[in-house]
């Protein structure tokens, strides 16, 4: 539904009904859209920052569309794994708002360093969603160009990418690309488990002392495979930032509006030269850690049901309906687009060819290696000795 359509609201920007202070209970978090779809105009964070969003109707609908598409593509990937077409899949189910909110908060010039679960951020960066499926199908190692899309390769070693993000952000500052409204910022994604890693803590130290233009974006989905948050920390994760000397804030990670507001604010602070900050996006991993995991062994159904009631998409739909920002045709159109994109993804995954075995020797070194040349030649000779073999 475009602006000016019959039934569209007269105003492009909507005033929300009321404002309030952030709750100070547990969990203390920034929220602009409650689980029941109630819109909160603005929230003051723990450091006095006022968070609000000012979206057009079209932008609200766009966020909803992102959330639905990202969930559908993720579900398709899970199905493909179950049918033997992928070796593994790390589902983002439940974390769509944290990823779309932060992903859409990035400006074109910003650089992102993901874990292996940031399919939603990848989508927001304009990367073909087939790309990570090559990695999980086992036909390549992930095929996009990190510098073209400003989105680094997936990193599977937990927390390692936070140091890469920190170094990249140091380079941004060394290039003189901070200190202005159109400066560059960097975002590092990681999870609650990663906060126990040395690399993440080293990244906190480095980003702090070098005042790197970096946002640490922790999706606290409550579990590191089977281990609950209590095994990683005794304090709320966002409060760790204080000890390293930069701001920390906890946001409702199932609220795409609040996540956007908090991430945009932190990124803009970083690009303007105000240094790093930590966002703890408080969310929940609704599915398994990966398709190889069985969460029924370590968590109870009632906990999952409680989080089901905080679903990021359902609350957005209630909001759009209640405020008459979208009609039934819009929702049907989004669902149809999701269905088509998922089908397209499936068809293209099934058509992904296995790489030629000899390609395993490619790209080990920029300048090559005589040892590898020798091994490649020996392998090729051996491989070709079999009848019917071909590269």
């Amino acid at each position: 539904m475009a602006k000016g359509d019959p039934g569209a609201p007269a105003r492009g920007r909507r005033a929300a009904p009321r404002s309030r202070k952030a709750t100070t209970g547990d969990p203390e978090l920034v929220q602009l859209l409650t689980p029941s779809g109630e819109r909160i105009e603005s929230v003051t964070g723990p450091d006095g920052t006022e968070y609000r969003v000012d979206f057009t109707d079209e932008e609200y609908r766009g966020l909803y569309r992102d959330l639905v598409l990202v969930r559908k593509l993720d579900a398709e990937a899970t199905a493909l794994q179950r049918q033997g077409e992928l070796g593994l899949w790390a589902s983002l189910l439940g974390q769509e708002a944290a990823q779309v909110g932060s992903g859409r908060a990035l400006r074109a010039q910003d650089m992102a360093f993901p874990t292996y679960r940031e399919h939603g951020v990848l989508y927001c960066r304009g990367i073909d969603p087939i790309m990570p499926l090559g990695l999980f199908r086992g036909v390549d190692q992930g095929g996009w160009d990190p510098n073209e899309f400003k989105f680094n390769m997936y990193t599977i070693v937990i927390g390692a990418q936070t140091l890469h993000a920190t170094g990249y952000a140091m380079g941004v500052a060394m290039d003189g690309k901070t200190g202005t409204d159109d400066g560059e910022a960097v975002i590092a994604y990681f999870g609650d488990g990663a906060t126990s890693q040395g690399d993440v803590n080293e990244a906190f130290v480095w980003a702090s002392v070098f005042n790197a233009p970096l946002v640490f974006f922790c999706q606290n989905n409550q579990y590191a495979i089977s281990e609950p948050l209590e095994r990683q920390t005794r304090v709320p994760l966002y409060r760790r930032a204080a000890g390293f000397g930069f701001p920390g804030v906890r946001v409702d990670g199932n609220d795409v509006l609040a996540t956007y507001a908090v991430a945009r604010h932190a990124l803009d602070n970083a690009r303007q030269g105000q240094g790093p900050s930590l966002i703890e996006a408080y969310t929940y991993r609704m599915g398994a850690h990966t398709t190889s995991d069985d969460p029924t062994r370590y968590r109870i159904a009632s906990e999952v049901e409680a989080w089901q009631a905080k679903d990021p998409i359902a609350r957005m739909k209630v909001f759009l309906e209640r405020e008459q920002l979208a009609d039934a045709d819009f929702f049907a159109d989004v669902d149809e687009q999701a269905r088509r994109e998922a089908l397209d993804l499936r068809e293209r995954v099934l058509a992904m060819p296995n790489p030629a075995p000899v390609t395993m020797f490619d790209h080990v070194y920029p300048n090559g290696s005589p040892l590898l040349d020798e091994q490649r030649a020996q392998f090729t000779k051996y491989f070709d000795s079999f009848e019917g073999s071909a590269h």
Partner: protein
Amino acid sequence: MATETLTLGKALNIGLRKALENDPKVVIMGEDVGKLGGVFRITDGLQKDFGDQRVIDTPLAESGIIGTAVGLAIRGYRPICEIQFDGFVYPAYDQIVSQVAKMHYRSGGKLRIPLVIRIPFGGGIGAVEHHSESPEAYFAHTAGLKVVSCASPQDAYVMIQQAIASDDPIVFLEPKRRYWEKGPVDLDAPLSEAYPLHAARIARAGTDATLLAYGPMVRTCLDAATAAAEDGRNLEVIDLRTLSPLDLGVVYESVRRTGRAVVVHEAPSNVGLGAEIAARVTEECFYSLESPVLRVTGFDTPYPAARVEEEYLPDLDRVLDAVDRTFGW
């Protein structure tokens, strides 16, 4: 300037200076590399002349040094990381092996990580534990890394610049006990005409047996060859220079002439570089060998207390003892 007599450490220092001058994207990072000039003074004076954005004193965290260097490399910089001592590289091991080494491969060639990781290695300086180790096999075993070691001031000066100019990630092993040894260095010879980085070289021509060494053991083997000459044995000494990939063409040619080979390194023998070299020399030179390829190495103990390190480290007598054994076969 032409040819000057310099210590190996000073030759490295001038080589680093040239790299900083020639490419604004080159940065040096490490612990104490700035005002102090590094604990061995290899970066002496560089921060003063190039500023603290080019020569960066880092927090005391080795994984952080390498991990942030990876990010800087993705951003387009060419970081030179100094690891203060061999035994302190292990906190960075994951970043080196899982990130630095694999990024070009994983990205299908889209990302280059042109890092140089400088590590003073080896013993013989009377240090406390963790300051005398030889970790080269760990890195040589890792696909995606290249590993080199210099043995002379001339090579130190040239090889450090070649390593920095290379787009491959390179572990650059510096023979710390040779930092103060002097030799002639041609400071004006153009890098483009220099002897290649990944190539072994005959350090002393001989006819009777081939000694294979790198880094600190090249000097030991040259001394052994001098002593052997007095006994009428003419030993060839090959400075391997590149440990990954190994350049063994010159070695095969030598062993086919001499029929005898002894590999010498400070690192323990078990699954060390010597084992790989012996295996490959045996495969390539089987019918030329008059004896098995022998190894003279450190022992398979942790690096011992300094007062007994002279017995742990290969020296002239142990090298000649091995040569004698190749003749007694």
